[in-house]
């Protein structure tokens, strides 16, 4: 144990002095959490919607008034009157408006005669977020309209869906938090573990160790323990600061914090041991740098960190199954946002622990105690 502690102590002394490393691994993911969380988490406001009234009847007027009411209320769009369809479409193509609603001639007559009145929405489907928001808002507007008409005919036209939200509103920035914590752990595993390990190798510092009586297992244990300590430190800081920043309720609840620390520790151990397995026989300092870039994308995005795994195509789901990020993100999300206990995340913890043990055994076998 003396040898392992000596090597771990050396790593921790260096870690304590590496202010830039700590700053980058903490601030980088926090910045991403705040920017990405608030950039993607909001609803769209103030889209300009061209309204072309070719009917000029009383019902068309009512529809235009309702559109104005949206602008005054939820504010999803602002209705801008256009005299004719051609100029409105030109405005859409040149980006002056985000959509065009055409109220066709005879709309009022059809409404009054109950002859399936229609309005047309021409949308710019290049931007799917905008077109989805616009068509959603308009459908709501027209649907309310339709219900009045339907009610008078007493025909059952729609099935009502009663939605009960299990948790208080969870903004996207909170949804993103578990992924950010795991990403911070990964970043430290790469910067404070893989890069440092390879730089030591290239500088000949490992050569200095190899001529001492330290054994292969002691070396592997020391690399893993020190890497995990650094990653757990950053993961814990990110969990605490991230919860406070994103407004997760009761961020200092001790039982939940302890459980989160357990997830963070197992995640760190799994990622560190996998990284050493990857680098056990590598001597080229470029390899961890390239691997870091590739793995960042390959592990983070399919894991459900930014978008539900269920929304991914089959091949990405296959990656998600073997991606340790998936289990770490799910466990943290269940714990931090759903308030569930250890029993709910036991399968995820088991996967992370098994990954750590298997990778550790394999990396110990692969590590060579010679140049």
């Amino acid at each position, binding site marked *: 144990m003396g040898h392992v502690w000596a090597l771990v102590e050396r790593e921790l002394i260096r870690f304590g002095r590496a202010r830039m490393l700590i700053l980058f691994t903490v601030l980088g993911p926090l910045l991403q959490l705040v920017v990405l969380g608030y950039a993607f988490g909001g609803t769209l406001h103030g889209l300009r919607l061209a309204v072309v009234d070719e009917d000029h009847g009383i019902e068309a007027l009512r529809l235009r008034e309702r559109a104005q009411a949206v602008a005054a209320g939820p504010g999803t769009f602002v209705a801008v009157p256009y005299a004719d369809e051609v100029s409105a479409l030109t405005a859409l193509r040149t980006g002056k408006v985000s959509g065009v609603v055409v109220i066709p001639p005879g709309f009022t007559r059809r409404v009054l005669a109950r002859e399936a009145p229609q309005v047309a929405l021409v949308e710019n489907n290049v931007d799917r977020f905008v077109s989805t928001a616009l068509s959603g808002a308009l459908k709501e507007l027209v649907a309310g309209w339709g219900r009045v008409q339907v009610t008078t005919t007493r025909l059952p036209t729609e099935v009502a869906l009663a939605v009960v939200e299990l948790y208080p509103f969870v903004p996207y920035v909170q949804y993103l938090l578990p992924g950010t914590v795991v990403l911070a752990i990964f970043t430290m595993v790469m910067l404070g573990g893989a890069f440092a390990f390879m730089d030591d190798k290239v500088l000949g510092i490992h050569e*200095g160790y190899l*001529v001492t009586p330290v054994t292969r297992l002691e070396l592997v244990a020391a690399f893993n323990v020190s890497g995990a300590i650094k990653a757990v430190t950053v993961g814990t800081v990110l969990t605490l600061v991230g919860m406070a920043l994103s407004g997760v309720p009761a961020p200092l609840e001790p039982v939940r914090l302890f459980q989160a620390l357990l997830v963070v520790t197992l995640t760190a151990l799994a990622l560190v041991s996998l990284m050493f397995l990857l680098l056990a026989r590598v001597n080229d300092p470029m390899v961890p740098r390239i691997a870091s870039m590739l793995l960042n994308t390959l592990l983070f995005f399919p894991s459900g960190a930014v978008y539900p795994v269920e929304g991914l195509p089959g091949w990405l789901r296959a990656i998600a199954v073997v991606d340790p990020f998936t289990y770490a993100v799910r466990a943290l999300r269940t714990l931090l946002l759903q308030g569930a206990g250890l029993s709910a995340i036991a399968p995820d913890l088991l996967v992370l622990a098994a990954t750590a043990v298997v990778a550790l055994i394999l990396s110990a076998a692969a590590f060579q105690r*010679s140049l």
Partner: protein
Amino acid sequence: MSAVAAIEVEGIVRRFGDFTAVDGIRFSVAEGEIFGLLGPNGAGKSTLIRMLTTLVPPTAGTARVAGCDVVREAAGVRRAIGVIPQNMTSDRELTVKENLSLFAQLYDVPRRRRPALIAELLAAVQLTEWADKQVKFLSGGMRRRVEIARGLVHRPRILFLDEPTTGLDPVSRAAVWQMLRKFKAEQDLTVVLTTHYLDEADALCDRIAIVDHGKLVALDTPLALKASLPGDSLLEVSFAALPPGWAERLRALPAVERVTGVGHAYRIASADGPVTLRALLAAAEAEGVRFESLDVQHTSLDDVFAEYTGRQLRDALQEPSARESAVMAAKGQR
């Protein structure tokens, strides 16, 4: 010098693919000896040291260091040796004391003995005032002294130094030499060092092995190596134009033991430099032969190196190493 062998090397070979870095070297080093491995870059010195310090396993042959086989009893070898590698490998972010403390722990120096031992070593390498400074703030010479202290932190029986003064200024080199002599005298150390500095080998080593292209080409004391060459003086002369039979005239000069020449340039080995020089000047005067250059010197290790390898060490240092040549040949560059 004790007769007990600290190191015994028997026909050791190391190949990297098709390239043979060390080719059947055999020698032994007595306890308490300073043993030098002299040769140009790529001669195989570092590979030899790496095999003796258990970093690289030999392809064939055996070596015993401090009575332990370098392959089968590697752990025993590691406990007995201190190693100062070619590259300065102390941790730049750690302080001098932290570096020494780390290695004291890796070598199982008992906790209670560490402070006194480290203080003693720091004083010996004159770095006491720098103990709490990070290594990155030290000069090259000071960093080398940290390495020496680090290599001695567990009081090893045998110290290996791979090119210990490469890249140091003359003052720092002299300081390193002085420290090595002191440690050797005080601690009864056996020292094995590689160098391509002839003056270093001459000044420090009890015996020198000349290594070239992975083979041991000569092994003896510096004095004996120099004495093995004909004469104790060497005249290097070049002439503007030569009369017929001039080489024979040179060989006939008094005290001359050997004459070798290329074109108008000759190397004349003499048992009595001044006598041969006077006769040479007289003969040239009589024949009307004009000198282009004339240099007289005592036989040096460079001459020994030239004798055994066929080229000057300073020239050999400019050549690509054997391994580099092999790589270049493979790439079709030669």
